[in-house]
């Protein structure tokens, strides 16, 4: 009996040591997305939040680079967070939203519609950027299943070592530095700042299908249903970038969808003058994405819309939020200065 217990104990101990070692190696080889490819850091940063949010933005790069939660708070007292990611497709957005609803119920969810043009999974690399940082749960499992491209396997999302083991000979200082630490946040409540200026030129024309893919629209339907279940207002937006092109047919389709579901839809491209966007000064990559100046203008305009249409409370003066946003604003301004000096 004693011998059997010793054997079982030995086996258990060996397994613990082995799995511990594999866990450590797994953390080491997984990309840290902290100093390079920071887009991959955004999904995980959400879980560091200590306060809840009235507004949750979801979508692709057009949300995480076009809205400044700092401006929204400082100008209107609106608390917000951006759950956006590079090429975050609509199913990713759905599951990130479902994941967020586990811990908070925002009053408004803002969804940027550009990613609806993709009806199929696009790239493993972007899947990883969006899903690696996601907390384990039903939502993550759903997101993985919905978005895998050919050749990907489910298990490697659950056990990152299976995917990243080939990085063992490509480890950088970043990997060692953030082995067991997530480091400082790279975003400002999901917003990624750029201060450079690269004026917009001619918009390249690409062939397109005048109808948005049915799969995307079905997922949008699910997002609408999810928000309705939680009593959250859904706002559809198309942020003011001029490239990739947002076609009139798509715009009409989304407008019809919004109308049929009783949702608000703002195509901000049409509001560029009202917002004050100048594509000669407010973009850092020729009109694809906005720089901080553009993002602040958009946030000021949209903050007013949100406050007016959804009667969001002004949280300024509430100690918990003030402390949080004061620290964030200081970091935000420092970063703005640092980047501007770099430019």
């Amino acid at each position, binding site marked *: 009996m004693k011998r059997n217990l010793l*054997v079982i104990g*030995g*086996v258990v101990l*060996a*397994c613990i040591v*082995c799995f511990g*070692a*594999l866990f450590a*190696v797994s953390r080491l080889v997984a990309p840290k997305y902290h100093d390079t490819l920071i887009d991959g850091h955004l999904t995980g940063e959400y879980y560091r939040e200590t306060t809840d949010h009235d507004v949750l933005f979801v979508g692709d790069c057009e949300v995480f680079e076009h809205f400044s939660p700092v401006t929204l708070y400082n100008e209107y007292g609106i608390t917000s967070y951006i759950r956006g990611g590079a090429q975050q497709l609509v199913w990713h957005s759905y599951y990130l939203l479902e994941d967020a609803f586990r811990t908070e119920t925002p009053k408004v969810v803002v969804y940027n519609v550009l990613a609806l043009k993709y009806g199929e999974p696009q790239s*493993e690399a972007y899947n990883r950027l969006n899903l690696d940082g996601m907390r384990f749960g039903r939502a993550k499992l759903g997101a993985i299943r919905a978005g895998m491209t050919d*050749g*990907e*396997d489910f*298990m*490697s999302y659950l056990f990152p*070592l*299976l*995917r990243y*083991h*080939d990085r*063992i*000979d490509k480890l950088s200082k970043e990997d060692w530095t953030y082995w067991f630490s997530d480091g400082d946040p790279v975003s400002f409540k999901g917003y990624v700042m750029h201060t450079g200026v690269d004026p917009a030129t001619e918009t390249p024309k690409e062939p397109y299908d005048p109808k948005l893919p049915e799969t995307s629209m079905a997922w949008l339907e699910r997002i609408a249903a999810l928000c309705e279940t939680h009593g959250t207002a859904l706002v559809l937006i198309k942020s003011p970038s001029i490239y990739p092109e947002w076609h009139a047919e798509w715009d009409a389709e989304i407008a019809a969808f919004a109308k049929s579901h009783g949702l608000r839809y703002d195509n901000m491209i049409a509001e560029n003058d009202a917002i004050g966007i100048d594509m000669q000064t407010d973009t850092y990559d020729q009109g694809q994405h906005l720089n901080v100046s553009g993002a602040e203008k958009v946030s000021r305009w949209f903050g007013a819309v949100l406050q007016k249409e959804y009667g969001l409370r002004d949280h300024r003066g509430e100690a918990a939020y003030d402390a949080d946003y004061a620290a964030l604003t200081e970091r935000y301004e420092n970063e703005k200065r640092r980047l501007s000096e770099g430019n």
Partner: protein
Amino acid sequence: MLFPSWAFLLFLAVLVPVYYLVPKRIQWIVLLLANAVFVCFAGFLGAVFMAVTIVTVYAASRAIDALFVRQRETIAAMKATHTKEERKAARLRFEKKRRLVLIVCLILNFGILFALKYGAMLGRLSAGLFGGKPFGQDLALTMGISFYTFSTVGYLLDVYRESVPAEKNPLKLALFTSFFPLLVQGPITRWETVGKTLTEPHAFDGRRFLSASLRIAWGYWKKLIVADRLLVAVKALCARPGVYRGDFIFVEMLLYAACLYADFTGGIDITIGVGEMLGVSIEENFLRPYFSKSISEYWRRWHITLGEWFKRYVYYPLSVSKPMRALSKGTRRLGVGVSRRVPVYLATLLVWALTGAWHGSNLTFLVWGLLNGVVILLSEELKPLYARFHARFPRLTESAFYRGFTVIRTVLLLSSLRILDCYGTVRDAFSSFFSMFTTWNWGAVFRGGIQSLGLSYFDYAVAFSGVLVMFALSLVQRKGAIRKRILKRGTVCSVCVLLVLIGTILIFGRYGFGFDASQFIYNRF
């Protein structure tokens, strides 16, 4: 379903518990169903060809068995009433019928194999000769057909020779033919050994399970850490015969030798381990082949089951066949030595030509097979010379240095022959091989050339370490089975070794997204 795939591991994870949980008398039926799933997973056409083999071999074996029974009854009935000559004539009639059944079945089964293996090649050849669109370009080998055809035909030949009785239950023959671990890359098994254990009841044995897990993990280790890594460089070298020459070819020879060994033995380790996990004993296919001191010894230790098959079913029957005896008789006037050698030489060369042809439809394989035969025959001829050399320098030839020399010589010789395996044409193969002696670029491979082969220095370091581990373990293995020794040290030690193997595979293996889950090299044969 590739061995290195989640689908296969899941398949095994479901099968093993179910296999041991069901009543023992239906274990073999569970296995048969698992085989059906595995075969269907590989493709419908493959399942159809396999079904044809099972049905025809079963029918033929039963017919042959029935003819034996009827022959015995007839001869017994004739004993009192007929003369010896009449009884002999009756026996010959039965023999003729049996032979006819056998030949029809062999033609059908080897015909399928031949069509799939050579159909596309013959189509191209015919189009080249007579013009028109080449036929049969869609023909390709189905999963395991080279292996199960040989195993099942071997069973039929054994029945024909009355070495084994014909199996009455067709499902049991189906189980033998389709046993899934054997379909990936063999070994070619015998009914007498594997066929029987497949249908026997097996109780779960924790120690056996651990031992099997160790063997499977070791197989994956060799495949994923060494073979799949080296295969990248080997493929790069083979793809550009005009570019990589001289010392690159020498490196290619060595890399391919290590790669093929790790790939083939790794796959066989997984096969035997899976069999062991299910209580089924599968024949060993390797016996430290790279420690052989001659090519003929090497072929007794490499792909043992294929060599045994050809020896048992082709070489021996052919050597003593009537035409060979007649040939031997006919050449007697040229001397006893010649008449003694002719049947042996012809049978050897034919067996090696067939061995080459078994490996593939390319002419390179045929030339490779024949060259192996020629080298073996030459070695035989030179035996007296070797004997004189050994007698003259006994201290030298008994030294470790000389043994090492013969081992290295054999490895280099067989690696040189294997160059034919790497290229699409005999011309490319010979041109590349001889460039080692004509293209003087020694050292170029280490002046950055090695990095152009798709592997990093880290990859080479891992692969080289893997080769060293395999070599060291082979040395240790000479003193006894390593797994037995590990298991003797207790469960904790065995589990630790297993975990280390799994851990190193997970970290250093080549698998997952971005890597081609490559099939075993021998699977394409």
